[in-house]
């Protein structure tokens, strides 16, 4: 890159310039070709998702997302749920009675809706407008229940950041890019 130009040797300088210019074009074209071959070999568009089997319910999903409230929400795999009357994902361990009163609920925002189905079964569903993705219910359900509640990135909210801001903060390495046409990692039977 050191060009000696004490004397006005314009032709030599111009030659050098042209040469470097051509070099630049070659490098960029090579880079383009390399990256395009990467992209062709890849599986196309990806989105962020978290693996519920790795998740440790640390609470970072609620606080580290660029959105407020977080794009991570608790979701419910109904086919795994025991429809327990005493749901440890719904009730605070310190609950004095099994009613829907706020002080008995584990959820800090009251986002879990409890509906009576038939004796002794209750259905639990998530009001995603209220859920902040803190994972308290997920922890409760997994500790004592079937583990039917789990966290997922909700793609109707997620803005698909280039690098998810929750991912580096996740202590369990649970976040990864998944193909956009299979955007969920659901729990099933």
């Amino acid at each position: 890159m050191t060009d000696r130009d004490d004397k006005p040797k314009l032709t030599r300088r111009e030659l050098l310039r042209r040469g470097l210019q051509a070099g630049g074009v070659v490098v960029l074209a090579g880079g383009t070709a390399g990256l395009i071959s990467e992209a062709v070999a890849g599986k196309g568009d990806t989105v962020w998702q978290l693996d519920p089997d790795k998740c440790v319910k640390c609470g970072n999903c609620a606080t580290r997302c660029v959105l407020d409230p977080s794009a991570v929400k608790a979701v419910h795999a109904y086919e795994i749920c025991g429809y327990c009357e005493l749901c440890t994902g719904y009730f605070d361990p310190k609950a004095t009675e099994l009613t829907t009163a706020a002080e008995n609920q584990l959820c800090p925002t009251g986002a879990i809706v409890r509906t009576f189905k038939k004796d002794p079964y209750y259905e639990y569903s998530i009001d995603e407008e209220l859920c902040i993705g803190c994972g308290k219910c997920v922890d409760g359900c997994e500790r004592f229940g079937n583990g039917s509640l789990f966290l997922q990135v909700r793609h109707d909210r997620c803005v698909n950041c280039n690098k998810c801001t929750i991912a580096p903060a996740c202590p369990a390495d649970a976040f990864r890019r998944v193909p956009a046409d299979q955007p969920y990692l659901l729990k099933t039977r």
Partner: protein
Amino acid sequence: MTSTRHAGIILILLMLLSGAATADLRFPTPELDEPLPETTTPEPRQGIWRHIEYVDAAVLAGAIVAASWFAFKRRSRRGIAVVMLLSLFYFGFYRLGCVCSIGAVQNAALSIGGDGYAVSFPIIAFLLLPLFGTLLFGRTFCGGVCPLGAIQDVVALKALKIPRPIEAGLSLFAVAYLAAAVLLAFSGTVFLICRFDPFVSIFRLVPVGKWIEQVAMGEAGRVSFSVAGRVDLLILGGVMLLVGVFVARPYCRYICPYSVLLRPLSRLSKWHVTITPDECVQCRLCENSCPYNAIEAPSAPDPGRHFGKLGLSVCLVLWPVMIAAGLCAGWLAGPAVSRTDHHVRLAEHLRRADAGEETDHDLAAAYDRQPLGADEIHAIAGRVRSRVRHGAMIVGGFVGLVAGMRLVRWSVRRRRPDYVPDRGTCLSCGRCFEVCPIERKRRNDAAASAGEDG
């Protein structure tokens, strides 16, 4: 009291139901009269929004062409500024600053690093279009398209002149930043550029895009402020803009990792904007018009060959010293950098736990949930540590190499008869056009001839 009672109830329930329960579930699923609800899975993006990144790439190409056209053909600062503000709105406030060309460097690094991630076509376009554009027209992308540059350009009201040695020293930070960002992205841990992007949180403060989409869909628009744990970045962005009032575009000049790629390409560019449309009359009027310190005065009379030789030889001796210093710094920084890796963090946790020290509760839980044994984790962590340390040394050596190269460049005298933009640092913003008397004459002539025609 109550919690123990409940735990007791659960235990009894468990024992009662264990016979009936399926093998993998603690509690049996009920026989309900109605079908069970499905777990909802809202799609990533609906309809036309699904491919909006391709639209973004097209807008980017269009904006670079438009900014270059205004810079070369119209020589209009106003035109460049309009393109700049439109891109600030589109890429910044509407598309929330993601993906951007600066960050795309990391996607390319991660893709080559290979953990199953592959860059997509729009991201390749974001990375390469400005590079090709710069090779043709100089840094018109920086001056007229980049939303990060644009938000700083708007506040650059009282630009002070930064002494050249300080300017050169500070801009070395960008080299280190690029090298570190590529290293970390390559290893698949952190996207450093995104993590410390000072302006993206400002773009996202008011979700304009969401509002526009809501109104376009015929819903009632609802605007809510959103900070979401990005307070540190908002402060960083605020400070950067405040500094930017006095030091024009501080991010672009001293921090932007992408500029490290754009500078040499701009030096080689096929065309580059000129201050004057005709011959320079050395009136010195443009000298202070550049807020970015990118206009170089005609070279001073030659101080003598002896002085130049001495300077050059000192720089050539310092060059290897700088590379060695960079290698050492990398070697020292290696362990700290490796702590961004998941397995290194797990290994650290295991070491602390073995030593009976306090350790992180969540890491302990994460360790319990993964299949590897302690020895395997220590082995993986060891490999990562040594790889990262080598990588950090490459980064440090690279920074030393570039620093030395710039020093040598600096000590080599160049002949400049006129006032010219420094091709590396000029952002093609067009501010100097307005002050050039030759340019003014050209405009008056053009206006006069247009008047005659009319």
